[in-house]
């Protein structure tokens, strides 16, 4: 080791740099994985959150469509037997479209209802919804969701269905007990506000 002080100093600085680089490479590899994982988990959550609501509207639209079709069919052939008492055994509960047979029929001759329903289905059709995180797809999904919410509200109003799920939500206690069921504002507020 015949070396000058400068050489040794350089050697030391090189050594420090080597140490730094060693750590950097290690960190870069770990960081890449950590960053990707963090982003991925967050992305899964955000994607799910956004589309679960779109899916909900789509599912509801599927049921309404089925009910509308049943009603139309019933109207046309009023001689058909109603199968409700035969199939309404709770034991083997059927959750497929045939369950709509025993539901109340939809208001007839409402072409607006049919039109709104068709529009709603179009807005939330999973086949045409972009599910990538591109600006275009995200904006499109947001726009369509907004439109679908309005359409669903319109349909619910025509059908006299509740718009919220407060009464059937798993956490719902005895919300139905509030008021006399008319759902009018006066009814609920009179119970909550004590004059």
């Amino acid at each position, binding site marked *: 080791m015949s070396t000058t*002080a400068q050489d040794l100093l350089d050697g030391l600085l090189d050594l*420090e740099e080597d*140490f*730094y*680089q060693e*750590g*950097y490479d290690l*960190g*870069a*590899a770990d*960081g*890449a994985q950590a*960053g*990707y*994982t*963090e*982003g991925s*988990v*967050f*992305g*899964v*959550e955000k*994607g*799910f*959150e956004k*589309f*679960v609501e779109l*899916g*909900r509207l*789509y*599912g*509801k*639209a*599927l*049921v309404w*469509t*089925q*009910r*509308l*079709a049943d009603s139309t069919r019933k109207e046309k052939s009023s001689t058909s037997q109603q199968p*409700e008492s035969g199939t*309404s055994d*709770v034991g083997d*509960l059927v*959750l497929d*479209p045939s*369950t*709509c047979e*025993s*539901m*109340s*029929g939809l208001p007839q001759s409402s072409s607006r209802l049919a039109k709104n329903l*068709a529009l709603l289905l179009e807005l939330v059709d999973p086949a045409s919804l972009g*599910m*990538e*995180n591109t600006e275009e797809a995200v904006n499109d999904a947001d726009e369509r969701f907004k439109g679908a919410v309005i359409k669903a509200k319109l349909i619910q109003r025509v*059908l006299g269905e509740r718009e919220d*799920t407060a009464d*059937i939500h*798993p956490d719902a206690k005895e919300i139905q007990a509030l008021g006399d069921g008319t759902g009018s504002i006066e009814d609920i507020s009179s119970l909550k506000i004590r004059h």
Partner: protein
Amino acid sequence: MTSTHSDGQTIVHQDTLDDIFGSSPPRGDGIINDQDGGQGLPREQQQAALSGNVEPSDLPSLRRQHVTAGYRDGVAESKGQHIQAGFDAGYAVGARLGMRAGTVIGILEGIVRGYDGKNGTIRKQQPGTAGESTATTEAAKKTRQEKREEILRRYRAAVRELDMHAVFAGSDTPTAAPLQGDEKSEKPEVQLGARGDAVVAKWETQVNVPLWEANMDTLEMTKE
């Protein structure tokens, strides 16, 4: 550096590097013991230190210091570069599962609403059977109410099980609960996607989503 008797080459050499190498391990000790931490010094070094010639080694701590600094910078820089790629990949997976889970919940919600008693419990009665219909209507009303209760139970179970955190926890399906050996090497969104799929698929079968969708197709065709 403060030495005053710098009269020879060797001494000058030592003095110049005093503050840098003063803490270096004695020559010949090429092995850097990282775990040592400079505390429990080997006897050799202690003796050397006692002799006044060489001070205890700081190289492990020097190494640690620079490796740590490099590691921090490496993590910080590369993490930021990879978050977006992860998010994009995860978003698509989450979106697809969210859509499917939402569809199941929506169908169940729609069925519950269809059984809500409010707007006319039962479809308008057939004319001419007014006599016996009151009795059958009462009975039908009852089964109907029971049926609604059962559907409501399913709906509530679905909302609970298809909650985002429940879906990706994989706790609902025992097979997916523990991290599989090869699952670890998979990308996170793939793991989460597989877990979520197991939970959602179970519900899709229960409500028979394909049948609802197939009916929709035929309806749309006959519409206009």
